[in-house]
């Protein structure tokens, strides 16, 4: 068995086996060990895979059964499970979509597909590798933190019987599904994993079993089933047109201007938009925050939503130069802008994070749609940096929520007093989202320069970026808002929590400073043969004929500035402390001054959320309408 095959097997099958063990052996010690060991092995295998990329292979039969047959059986089983949930919860849409997919699949598998050629079922290039690394490393870290989190979570809920076996079963299964999805080259296998992620997210969102959780989970299930139906439809069309089921060959087949081929690509994009919760399908991802926070972290950063952007980035070369591609760019830009606007109107921290995810994914779609070498690089880098930092921020909010029992930004006012280290790490996360020389901004810079040749897209990206700065800066400032932040004493948290937060924060920082190297080693190999590498790297400066971003020099200067500023903080800690100005004689209590009739008055200020402009009630309907029109344009325009 070649090494690549062995590693792929570990990446896909090991978490699956771990999931079963988690489900069967309901002892928390053993479960924690299994999760830790599996995570460690996933990380090792993913890193090892770097040296074996690229590869393509057809695995040996498993237990005497050909892989195709196994996937076929599992596929129908999976759809029947979805159908079962449709019947159990009397959800007509889920029933209908599951039945539709079963019928399509039956027809497709038994009447359309002729003798299956011997195809490469698994394929790994550097894009696959990037995804595997994200899933395995970020995903595993989130699972580690979940061990500590779920213990607190269940204590807080005062459950009589632990449901953690079920939770970790699905978490592990999710990692298995994601690795399977990004490694598969055969579109039927891809489809199976695509559906498996849908089911996993349904189970995870419904985990707490409340009415709201169930309602939101069902919404996620039907929306993603819609995507699944579009996917299988597209697959049938593609097969009729090209006679191929291999992703790589479908891409190389290329655009001949033929209607059916483009229509199928448009349907794939549609499926991707549902997975990535783009407008008008955003509600499932917003609803997903009822689940325990590690679930949100997993869905938002390393798994579910990345499926969509991965698929479209993969297919980008096939739709290069088409109207479809332009439409995707405009659609992505639209989502970027609108989600940022909605985030400004939110005071719920998790909702801000959710809208920010939707917004950033929109930007990645815009990059894929712009389809120039620069924009593709931007999209891939953004995918990586967003995954790491969003995981970090979600886990931070989860930690904060367990401590203050609220996820509202207003309640996090002056969090630095209570949880200095968590607050600082959160602020670091925010800084890495909006400031140079960090990776997210580097990719945004690339995206903007690539989008400058498209008036609509650059317009929306420019406005969206300004809104983005607004909602992040506001949050960071609120965390530090404190009558006096004096001595720094880190609060107590479990080792797994500090370890995970620290690793993600340091990892994001390190990757940002080494971005030129990352670009050369990881991104450039993914570009050929469709695109030429757009940037040169010299002295750690990423440069093309019309732009330059000095990553190393700026990182160095930023680090120096940071050290100076920290020294200033140390000096300031010895300075005389005065009370904030309240335009009145202050009583002893913080924020209270002596008002009229010698009565104490508490001075308070809340953040601006501008809900009269950016509120959900004001905007959502119109945005959904706009997104609907654009989607119609995307699918209809391909006809």
């Amino acid at each position, binding site marked *: 068995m070649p090494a690549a095959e062995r590693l792929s097997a570990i990446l896909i099958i090991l978490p699956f086996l771990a999931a079963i063990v988690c489900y069967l052996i309901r002892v928390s010690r053993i479960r924690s060990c299994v999760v830790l060991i599996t995570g460690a092995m996933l990380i090792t295998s993913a890193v090892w895979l770097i040296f074996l990329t690229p590869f393509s292979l057809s695995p040996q039969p498993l237990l005497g059964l050909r892989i195709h047959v196994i996937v076929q059986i599992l596929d129908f089983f999976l759809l029947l499970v979805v159908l079962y949930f449709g019947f159990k919860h009397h959800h007509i849409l889920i029933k209908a979509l599951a039945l539709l997919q079963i019928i399509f699949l039956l027809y497709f598998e038994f009447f359309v597909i002729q003798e299956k050629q011997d195809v490469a079922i698994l394929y790994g290039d550097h894009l696959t590798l990037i995804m595997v690394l994200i899933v395995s490393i970020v995903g595993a870290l989130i699972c580690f933190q979940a061990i500590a989190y779920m213990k607190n979570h269940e204590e807080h809920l005062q459950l009589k019987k632990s449901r953690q076996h079920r939770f970790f079963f699905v978490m592990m299964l999710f990692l298995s599904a994601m690795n399977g999805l990004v490694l598969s080259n055969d579109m039927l296998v891809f489809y199976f994993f695509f559906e498996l992620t849908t089911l996993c997210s349904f189970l995870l969102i419904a985990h707490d079993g409340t009415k709201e959780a169930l309602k939101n989970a069902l919404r996620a299930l039907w929306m993603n089933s819609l995507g699944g139906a579009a996917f299988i439809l597209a697959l049938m069309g593609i097969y009729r047109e090209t006679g191929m089921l291999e992703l790589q060959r479908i891409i190389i087949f290329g655009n001949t201007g033929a209607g059916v081929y483009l229509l199928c690509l448009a349907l794939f994009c549609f499926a991707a938009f549902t997975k990535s919760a783009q407008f008008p399908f955003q509600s499932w991802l917003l609803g997903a925050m009822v689940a325990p926070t590690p679930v949100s972290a997993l869905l938002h950063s390393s798994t579910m939503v990345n499926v969509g952007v991965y698929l479209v980035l993969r297919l980008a070369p096939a739709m290069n130069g088409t109207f479809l591609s332009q439409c995707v760019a405009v659609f992505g830009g639209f989502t970027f802008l609108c989600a940022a606007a909605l985030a400004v109107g939110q005071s719920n921290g998790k909702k801000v994070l959710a809208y920010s995810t939707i917004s950033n994914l929109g930007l990645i779609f815009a990059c894929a749609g712009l389809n120039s070498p620069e924009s593709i690089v931007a999209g891939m880098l953004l995918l990586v940096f967003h995954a790491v930092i969003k995981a970090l921020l979600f886990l931070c909010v989860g930690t904060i929520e367990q401590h203050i029992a609220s996820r509202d930004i207003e309640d996090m006012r002056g969090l630095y007093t209570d949880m200095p280290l968590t607050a600082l790490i959160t602020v670091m996360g925010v800084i890495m989202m909006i400031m140079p020389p960090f990776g997210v901004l580097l990719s945004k810079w690339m995206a903007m320069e690539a989008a400058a040749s498209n008036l609509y897209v650059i317009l929306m990206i420019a*406005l969206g970026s300004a809104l983005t700065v607004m909602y992040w800066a506001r949050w960071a400032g609120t965390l530090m808002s404190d009558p006096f932040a004096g001595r720094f004493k880190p609060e107590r948290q479990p080792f797994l929590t500090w370890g995970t937060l620290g690793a993600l924060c340091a990892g994001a920082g390190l990757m940002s400073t080494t971005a030129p190297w990352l670009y050369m080693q990881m991104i450039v190999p993914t570009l050929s043969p469709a695109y030429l590498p757009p940037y040169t790297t010299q002295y750690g400066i990423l440069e093309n004929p*019309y732009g330059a971003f000095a990553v190393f020099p700026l990182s160095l200067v930023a680090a120096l500035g940071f050290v*100076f500023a920290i020294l200033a903080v140390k000096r300031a800690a010895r300075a005389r402390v005065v009370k904030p100005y309240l335009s009145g004689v202050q009583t002893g209590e913080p924020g209270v001054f002596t008002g009229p009739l010698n009565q104490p008055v508490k001075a308070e200020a809340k953040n601006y959320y501008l809900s009269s402009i950016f509120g959900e009630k004001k905007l959502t309907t119109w945005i959904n309408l706009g997104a609907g029109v654009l989607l119609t344009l995307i699918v209809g325009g391909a006809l």
Partner: protein
Amino acid sequence: MTDTAVLIVIGLFAGPLLGGLVSGLDRILTARLQSRIGPPLWQPFYDVVKLWGKEKTVVNVWQAFCAYCYVAATSIALVLFFLKSDLLLILFTQAVGAVFLVVGALSSTSPFSQVGAHRELLQILSYEPLLVFVAVGIYLETGSFKIAALDTWNEPLLMKLPFLFVVLGYALTIKLRKSPFDLSTSHHAHQELVKGLLTDYSGSFLALIEIGHWYETVLLLGFCSLFWANNWIAMMILIVATYFVEVLIDNVSARMNWRWMLGYVWAMGLTLSLVNLIWLYVG
């Protein structure tokens, strides 16, 4: 290599020096417009020196962090400008400074600081996209985001980007904290927010912020200079005229609220940018 070093040093020193002088001239000019004599030219420097000598007091130690980061970011932005670097990169670096200023103000619990900080965020929201449009316009005309590309440009950009120059004017007015956009803080303390965003900065930290503001002023006037970069005399005339108009606007207009600012600046800025950018796309 030595050229680079010289440019870095020029950038670091030109900022405070020119910025302080501009500020001094501004005060004299404003005074004359109001039939006063005004302070001496070097007054802004005296002010900063005096502030520096004051006893250090803080409301929250992170204010010190933010003040230093503000100066660092704005000075780096100006140095990048002198190195003829990438326009968008300069804009992003400048935005870092603006964000730290806001975060520092938010770290005080005084309602004056808090409201000032939020208004400053709205100001950032108003002008940031406009500056990006100006950069995009320059790119469409010269084919590059690098300022260095203007070295070989023989025609003033103003001819091709007249509306974008007006758009830049809006951003400049907001950035210089001139009426009608001096919402978050103003040079005069007689506003409803006391000193707004800067209320709780004091002593050397306030001095730092003043210096950072000088860097920003020079940077924005630098952007203006790009519009007539092929002739020194014309460039100077353009900058002086622009600044004079800024002072004039400051003196003849009243402070407005953020709703008006956001609506007006986005509507006007977007329309003017669009018209100018569409010309360039078509042309």
